[in-house]
């Protein structure tokens, strides 16, 4: 264990941060057994005021409660949208990489389309089309972030297809489905997992930016909502924006560290140096 920490310090730090954040999300209803929207006192109480560890916002709501309850939503948006875009990206990437030819061409053109529009603007457009809600935000983030996944999976598949152990499966008469499912996918996954951790980070940031522009889901307390709502009053109550901002920074940092750590851990070439 200790040597593991020493060898993959980034991953351990990153994983610890994410674990702590998840714990906070789980503990939120226990720590703050009331709605984060509830107005519990005077507005603009600074951090440390009685009843408001982290201060209150413009309506006298508890920032600490908002932060804790918002954790869940931010993680949910990050997690679900990433899973969804991994789903799309892996399917299309696998299809393109395995079938090749025209299918490959078509899928890649399709991905290219998504990359010709600035992704944030596209996300805004999608949220507007679907109406802002937690569902549409997740959908929009997923829809704009799958192309890199598809590209990575496709590239992995293309290179894996040439690998001898895949050809071996082919020669054994293993079906397409099983080759993809039990041979190609597990081997293509490590870079995707790394990408996935970064995508969660990106999704958290995108959600906060959407909220900042007023396109969040007002039924769900999220960090992005807090940052966005506090921004216009930043000179009266800096804590309303800045503390959730710090939470975002820490989480995204944790996810990035985790991603980098995973990269080292999952890449046999980097983790175990071939000895002479």
């Amino acid at each position, binding site marked *: 264990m200790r040597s593991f920490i020493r060898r993959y310090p980034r991953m351990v730090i990153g994983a610890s941060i994410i674990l702590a954040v998840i714990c906070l999300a789980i503990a939120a209803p226990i720590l703050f057994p009331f709605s984060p929207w509830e107005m519990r006192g005077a507005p603009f109480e600074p951090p440390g005021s009685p009843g408001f560890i982290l201060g209150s916002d413009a309506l006298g709501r508890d920032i600490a409660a908002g932060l804790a309850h918002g954790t869940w939503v931010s993680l949910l948006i990050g997690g679900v949208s990433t899973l969804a875009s991994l789903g799309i990206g892996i399917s299309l990437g696998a299809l393109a990489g395995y079938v090749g030819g025209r299918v490959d061409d078509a899928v890649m053109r399709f991905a*290219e389309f998504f*990359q*010709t529009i600035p992704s944030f603007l596209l996300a805004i457009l999608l949220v507007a089309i679907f109406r802002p809600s937690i569902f549409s935000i997740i959908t929009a983030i997923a829809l704009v972030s799958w192309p890199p996944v598809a590209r990575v999976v496709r590239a992995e598949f293309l290179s894996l297809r040439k690998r001898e152990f895949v050809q071996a499966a082919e020669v054994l008469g293993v079906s397409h489905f099983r080759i993809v499912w039990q041979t190609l996918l597990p081997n293509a996954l490590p870079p995707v997992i790394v990408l996935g951790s970064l995508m969660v980070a990106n999704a958290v940031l995108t959600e906060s930016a959407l909220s900042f522009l007023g396109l969040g889901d007002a039924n769900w307390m999220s960090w992005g909502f807090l940052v966005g709502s506090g921004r216009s009053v930043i000179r009266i109550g800096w804590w309303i*924006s800045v503390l959730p*901002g710090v939470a975002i920074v820490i989480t995204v940092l944790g996810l990035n560290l985790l991603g980098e750590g995973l990269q080292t851990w999952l890449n046999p070439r980097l983790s175990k140096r071939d000895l002479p």
Partner: protein
Amino acid sequence: MSSNRLQAMPRLIGWRVLKMAAMVLAIVVVNFLLIHAAPGDPASAIAGQSGQADAEFMRQLREQFGLDKPLPLQLWIYIERVLTLDLGVSHRLQRPILTVIFERLPATLLLTGTAFLIALASGVALGVRAARKPGGIADTLIMGGSLFFYATPLFLVGIVLVLVFGVWLNWLPTFGMETVDMPLQGIARATDIARHAVLPVITLAVFYSAVYVRLTRASMVEVSSYPFIKTARAKGASETRIRWVHMLRNALLPVITLAGIQAGHLVGGSILVETVFAWPGIGSLAFEALLARDYDLLLGIFLCTSVVVLTFNLLTDLVYLAFDPRVQAL
């Protein structure tokens, strides 16, 4: 062989341009459908803006914007116009869309272009420095810093910079692109614009550069294990020379790819930074257009970014061709 490569160029480029055109057409269609899928239309947005409406008024507006026609017909009309390079007129701004876009272009490129160049240069330099001794102090500091800026929401960086440099220290203007109270000319005006640009450019640059730092470092570390680096050492080349002459050029290949993609997107501006710093760029124009359902303007912006992105993809490949003798085709 290299002359072969060059001779084939015009044909290859021609072919690519043709493919690009097809792609653009597809993009136009998809964008059109996507934008029209959004609830609301320009007429309802105008009604919303003016706080008044009646049925006749709405009907007139829709007729005027051609919204009373069936969607496929609207699409067809739009494509016809695009083919003649007529992007139409923004109903909201009452001006030709190309004019509006070109008007915003200089400010946009000044912001995103400068930030991009700074980010690229500093990102590569810091990445090279970090890769010099992976795990060393410099590496830890550089990578930690870039990670921090990468993890911080862009608008938060902007707000903090405004507070610190604009409010507390009062060193720099915090919004707009120039001082308009007194008309400035020549160098005075350039200086004035430069001062206005400092904060937004830095905000954007630290964000952009984080990616280049990481990419350059990873690429340098990777290249450092290539056998030809050992060959260079065996020749007696100094570490400095090895780093800048042998490693960097090879390590730049993935950086070029990323830079090419990003360069294409510069024309789209940055909604967040433009909003925070009141920068008159295309990002905020697009955002306003979206909220006001200014379909034609939004389509125009999307079309322009698509064309520019695709053009830069082509340019990137051309740069590759010039940069890497191994690349044979586009």
